[in-house]
């Protein structure tokens, strides 16, 4: 009851006193540590979240920027393409127009030249036709005259051939006659030659036999072997030799 005897303090003051008592320095320190840890935790979580958000935002920004740039570029390219197309179309149209005009002019020039050439060709053709007709006429006349000449020559040649044939026949007959005479003469000559050869053979045969004997006997006898025969022959002619020595 003592407590109730004391001056009554308001609950707030009492709470404050109690808090003063409860929340002493160590408790505060503890709270501060706790707060610090909690704060760090919160900070870390927030930082993590912030980082995630930042990453997501960065990614989103990249994507958005990319899309934006692409869109911008597409738009610009489309614009440039359209402008370039228009410019090129205009340029080409103008050049085509120039080329068409030049081509038209050239075609006209060519057509003019062709018409002129055609006229010249027609003139030349006319001239050639006239010349050809004249040449054909001349050739006809010449061919006719040549034909006539050839006919004349052919007739002359036929006559000459007939004459030559007659001469050849006569020559053949003469040749046959000569051949017959020649054959007769040849036969007579051959017979004569045969007789002459046989006579010559007989005479030469004697020479051949002699030659053979001379060759065969040439070295067969020495002087000693011949001596009796020599002395005998000298003995037979002894008187003639002796008479000659006395002269």
């Amino acid at each position, binding site marked *: 009851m003592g407590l109730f005897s004391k001056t009554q303090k308001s609950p707030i003051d009492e709470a404050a006193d109690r808090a003063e008592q409860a929340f002493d320095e160590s408790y505060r320190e503890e709270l501060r540590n706790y707060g610090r840890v909690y704060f760090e935790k919160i900070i870390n979580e927030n930082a993590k979240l912030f980082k995630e958000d930042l990453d997501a935002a960065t990614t989103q920004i990249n994507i958005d920027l990319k899309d934006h740039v692409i869109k911008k570029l597409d738009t610009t390219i489309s614009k440039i393409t359209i402008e370039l197309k228009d410019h090129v179309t205009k340029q080409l149209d103008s050049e085509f127009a120039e080329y068409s005009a030049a081509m038209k002019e050239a075609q006209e020039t060519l057509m003019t030249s062709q018409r002129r050439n055609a006229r010249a060709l027609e003139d030349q053709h006319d001239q050639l036709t006239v010349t050809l007709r004249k040449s054909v006429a001349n050739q006809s006349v010449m061919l006719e005259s040549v034909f006539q000449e050839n006919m004349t020559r052919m007739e002359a040649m036929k006559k000459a051939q007939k004459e030559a044939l007659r001469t050849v026949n006569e020559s053949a007959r003469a040749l046959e006659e000569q051949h017959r005479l020649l054959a007769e003469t040849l036969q007579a000559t051959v017979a004569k030659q045969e007789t002459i050869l046989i006579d010559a053979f*007989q*005479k030469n*045969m*004697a020479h051949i*036999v*002699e030659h053979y*004997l*001379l060759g065969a*006997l*040439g*070295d*067969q*006898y*020495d*002087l*000693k072997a*011949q*001596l009796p*025969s*020599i*002395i005998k*022959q*000298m*003995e037979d*002619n*002894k008187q*003639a*030799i*002796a008479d*000659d*020595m006395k*002269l």
Partner: protein
Amino acid sequence: MSKQPSAKTHAEFGLPPSIVTKVDVSRMINELESVDNQLTAMAVRARTTRPPNQTPPILSDQLTDFLKQNKLDIDTGRERRLLIQQLRLLKDKMPVIHMTFAVTADRESLSQLVHWLRTSVHAQAVISVGLQPALVAGVYMRTPNHVHDFSLRAALARSHEALVKELEVSRAEG
């Protein structure tokens, strides 16, 4: 006793069988002249000096045979000179018979031939030897004025006509 050369002329000389040709006679004369020179020189030396062992010159067989056959001496210079003189005359006047043979003549056969010639034809005959293989066999002999062809070639030539006739007969029979 040998006969003196002054008493024997060249016509009386006999020739030995070893002397066959005129060349042999010429050689004998040359030899005799050489011997005469040597003997004369020896005689001169013998008169002037007295050289020991003077040997006389050796004579050839031909000269020795000739001197023996004719019984001649050549001791004195006069004899030698006379003999040389006569031999020169003999060489100029000796009859030469030219004999051509078909083969080479040997000395022995020539000696026999010259012996026959000297006994049958002339005592001083010599021969001049020739060679002609075309003769085949036999001898072709030429005396001073005649030719005697005793060769086989001449014999065949003489019988040429007979050979032709024989061939004609053979041909007719064949």
